[in-house]
């Protein structure tokens, strides 16, 4: 019964709740009062020009950067108070955080599986290796893989612990169009089939339109716009998401009160 009640309570919670998040480095404000939520089975895109604060927000959600103020809750649990518990059901992949190149694919997945406390680890490693088409690279050192293959290994690590919340920082940045398409399909599948949610950053507006259920436009550490990536451009008099992105990046003040 407890399990059922726990499951019902969990399904009522948002996967991610960010409330009035601030991060300042001295006088420089990197994130200035950001609030948003991610629902179950939802893919939310964080968009914005370089330096807008996307990676800073992701690092705070991952627990590797302490907010100056604000609250982050994952599955209703406060990360500041219960970091290990919360982070255990979160994971991420980022192009700037490749797995150690001096370990093989299989070794890296085993080590990170232990770090995340994955049960029946050998079976789970086999599953993600198959899921991301890494069978032939199982015993190859990660440093010898192409950047696209390394990205797939990073994504395999990112889903290893069946995370409730998956944070993907430009996950397809170094992939060819065909592989990027496959990866997008896998992430969509992850979001639809499980009961988790995804935060996705990308500078590829086509990809964002295809993948994300909702997007948040960030500029100078604040959310300026929020909405469905398919309808948001028209709501603001633009033809495409890319046009809207350029406008937000160049004239953020125009959208500040939108």
């Amino acid at each position, binding site marked *: 019964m407890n399990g059922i009640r726990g499951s019902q309570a969990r399904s009522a919670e948002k996967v991610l709740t960010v409330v009035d998040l601030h991060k300042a480095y001295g006088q420089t404000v990197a994130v200035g009062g950001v609030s948003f939520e991610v629902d179950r089975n939802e893919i939310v895109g964080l968009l914005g020009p370089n330096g807008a604060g996307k990676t800073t927000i992701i690092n705070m959600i991952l627990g*590797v950067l302490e907010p100056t103020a604000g609250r982050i809750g994952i599955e209703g649990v406060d990360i500041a108070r219960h970091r290990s518990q919360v982070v255990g059901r979160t994971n991420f992949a980022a192009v700037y955080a490749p797995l150690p190149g001096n370990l093989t694919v299989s070794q890296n997945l085993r080590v990170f599986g232990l770090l995340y406390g994955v049960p029946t680890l050998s079976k789970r490693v086999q599953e993600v290796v198959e899921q991301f088409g890494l069978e032939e690279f199982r015993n190859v050192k990660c440093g010898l893989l192409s950047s696209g293959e390394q990205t797939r290994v990073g994504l395999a690590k990112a889903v290893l612990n069946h995370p409730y919340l998956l944070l993907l920082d430009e996950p397809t940045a170094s992939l060819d169009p065909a592989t990027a398409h496959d990866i997008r399909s896998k992430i969509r599948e992850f979001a639809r089939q499980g009961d988790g949610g995804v935060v996705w950053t990308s500078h590829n507006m086509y990809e964002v339109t295809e993948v994300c259920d909702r997007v948040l436009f960030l500029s100078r550490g604040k959310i300026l716009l929020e909405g469905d990536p398919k309808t948001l451009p028209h709501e603001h008099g633009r033809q495409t998401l890319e046009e809207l992105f350029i406008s937000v990046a160049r004239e953020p003040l125009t959208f500040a009160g939108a």
Partner: protein
Amino acid sequence: MRLQPVAAILLRHFYLLRGSPARVLPLFVWVAIDMVLWGFITRYLNVIASSGIDFVPVLLGAVLLYDFLIRVMQGVTLTFFEDVWSRNFLNIFATPLCISEYLCGLVLSSILTSAVGLVVMLVLATSVFGLAVSVYGLMFVPFLLVLFLFGIALGIFGSAVVLRLGPASEWFIWPIPGFVAPFVGVFYPLSTLPQWMRAVSYLLPPSYVFEGMRKVIDHGTLSPVMLLAGGGLAALYVVLACWFFAHIYRHALRTGLIARYSAETVS
């Protein structure tokens, strides 16, 4: 503390050692060279010295004990440096791993790697140069324990310094044992030192080990108070080093250094 994350740190280091002679050889080559060099030096001193002192337990034994301390310290720092060299901090600290689990993994890794060096040194020193460990009696075990604890403390302290100052600062860490050695009387009694150096010596646990070692060789006994003082100090330094590492880690979380470690500074 959970066992799985600790096992992950150990397993990672085992994988690295298994596939890399460049990591395995240093576990015992340098200490073996030290044993051979000091073994011959002590033989020569035994021949030319008229005092009748047997230099094997006094000098070769002292080098063995100090090399053990160095191996323990490097066992911790080298496991930590693997994360520095592979730029792995963001990946590893974004997992549920606690700092206590991480440090425990570093210590266990050091126990295994330093044990390899100790066995090689003991085999060489006893079989080739006739060092009789029985000269130290039962005191040999607490001597090793005090040095082990202080080596762990130095290793964790060094790792914290590198976490705070960036990858290039690892060159501050390698010379630490050389800097400590003159104060702790590895080769000579503390009474040889000037007063100000002796004052520093009393704060360093290895001083009690090497003074104790000479007392055991000369008189066959050692005051337990002396050994307890060394052990107590070493345990205190382990606690302080862990606190220092945790403090530096929290600073890195506040400043964003974990996520931007390759920049070495966030200012």
